[in-house]
């Protein structure tokens, strides 16, 4: 019996040889995708039931605590600015010339009618801090081999009780993510594509967010242009910059 168990463990160890642990994979994703700072222009296309609308914006991001976004089009949203500092969020609306702080339960509202909530945008806790991750499978997505990571919440104040992450085994880029309710029901799915190498790091240029309970094709987020580690003036991340 003892011999049988030892043999079984050896076989499992051999199968897993060469595959990093789940936490290690998550760390590698962070290394690959995070940078000191980045400036990018993006478009967000919200696919509604009848029509779609596209919003373009330019964002300045430092680490995961500071970000500043200015909406460029359409005309109705042009000039709207959003500032995130740590866990605080302000929005400036040029039509009213007012800056309002999005706090508490307003954070749960959708961003510009998209499938993303402000809270989704604000969540900057590292996955390794809030979830216990395990590699449960390998799958192929669009010809790329991926590890399937299952993440179970280890703290009780997270929005999603569990997540599933499909990570490219070579590029350490997530290609798909699924967010689950406590009951196990699939709530949201993000699909990443157009993975390109920018300044030595692999980056998905297109992300489609989809609320799985809702009809429609979700919200498509496209990076039009991205630059890493640029000189971003400090004043950008101040409330005064919202009215500039």
């Amino acid at each position, binding site marked *: 019996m003892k011999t049988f168990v030892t043999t079984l463990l050896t076989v499992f160890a051999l199968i897993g040889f060469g595959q990093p642990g789940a936490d290690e994979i998550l760390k590698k994703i962070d290394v690959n995708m995070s940078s000191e700072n980045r400036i990018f222009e993006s478009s967000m296309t919200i696919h509604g*039931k009848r029509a779609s609308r596209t919003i373009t914006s330019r964002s300045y991001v430092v680490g995961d605590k500071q970000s500043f976004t200015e909406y460029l089009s359409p005309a109705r949203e042009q000039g709207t600015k959003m500032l995130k500092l740590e866990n605080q969020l302000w929005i400036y609306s040029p039509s009213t010339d007012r800056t309002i702080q999005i706090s*508490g*339960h*307003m954070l749960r509202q959708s961003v510009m009618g998209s499938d993303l909530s402000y809270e989704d945008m604000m969540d900057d806790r590292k996955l390794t801090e809030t979830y216990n991750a395990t590699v449960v499978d390998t799958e192929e997505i669009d010809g790329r081999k991926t590890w399937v990571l299952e993440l179970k*919440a280890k703290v*009780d*104040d*997270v*929005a*999603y*009780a569990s997540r599933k992450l499909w990570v490219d085994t070579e590029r350490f880029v997530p290609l798909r993510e699924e*967010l689950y*309710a*406590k*009951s196990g*029901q699939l*709530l949201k799915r993000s699909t990443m594509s157009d993975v390109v190498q920018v300044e030595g790091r692999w980056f998905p240029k297109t992300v489609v967010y989809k*609320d799985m*309970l*809702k*009809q*429609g094709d979700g919200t498509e987020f496209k990076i039009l242009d991205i630059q890493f580690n640029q000189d971003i003036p400090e004043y950008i991340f101040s409330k005064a910059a919202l009215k500039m």
Partner: protein
Amino acid sequence: MKTAFKLACRNLIGAGLRTWLNVIVLSFSFVVIIWMKGIMVGWDHQAKTDMTNWEIGGGQYWHENYDPYDPFTLSESHAPVPEMFSEEITRSEMEPMLIVQGTIYPQGRMQSVAVKGINPKQKIFLLPTHKLDTVTDAVPAIIGALMARNLKLNVGNYLTLRWRDSKGTFDATDVVITEVFTSNVPAIESGQIYIPLEKLREMTMMDGEATLLTFADSEKERSPVEGWVHKPKDELTASVDEMIKTKTVGQSVFYGILLLLAMLAIFDTQVLSIFRRQKEIGTYIALGYTRREVVGLFTVEGAMHSVLAAVVSAAYGIPFLAWQAKVGWTMPMDVSEFGMAIAQTLYPIYSFGLVVSTVLIVVLTTTVVSYWPSRKIAKMNPTEALRGRIQ
């Protein structure tokens, strides 16, 4: 005075069609004003009764953070039910209700709702909560007809409900509509879904907690409870009072126009009488009447229109108003979207005070309008008047 009445009656009957036209117009004002005021009183009564039966009972305790106009406060508006109420709750004289924000997905559409947990065996509200006391493969839920119509939902339909527990973690499950109820209170129908209280507490990890406590007895003296705000019935129905007050002001304009038309006819009649009956006026003065008495005579004559109108109104108005009180007035438009407690059919309620005050207002107005042109008599030269000269 007796002679004045006799003369007034004789002159009015003698004027024939002119008098009757005035009387009919005035009587129409009487009936319409009483009917409209009756509708307002009926609405007030119906709205408050419906609110009591469906929404507020005999009054409520609100969690201190609860604001019905701000759904974002809901996640902060819950606390354990105070121990002092447990006996009342056991006797079904108080009902706790837990409210959380949720999202339903009928036919894949997204709709924010207030999820209300209510005791299926409650006896305070007319809500068909017994339909929640059933065994189904999904969570049983009841909704109002207004919401069912807007979202095209029927009994037996399944839909996904998503909510967050007390820690903010998302959860989702299927609910099945076990009943669609109809009330006249949109505040309890629009964007709301009712499920069993214990189930909601379990789903949200808010064991023993509530947002609202509704009691049956409005008369009982209530002391303040820490963390909860006492809302007596009067305070909860104050919005109805304000609405009725606003509507009454609006209606007064309509009464004013009606009365103006009737008074215009009376005024014209008085002016014509004084113009045509100058010889008569001269004769009265020659016979020893003082000018004041002659003015009084003509004023009484004018005011008698309203008395006659009251009699005529009673003849056709009483059967009409009684019939209306029985069958009610069904509004020609759909009132469910009005957002206030209003029934499609309103039943007017006429009080003695309402009728008397209306009669007094019309009689007084008519008297003033009759007196106004009669003042001219005081300035008449009796000799000239006797000769019938126009003055």
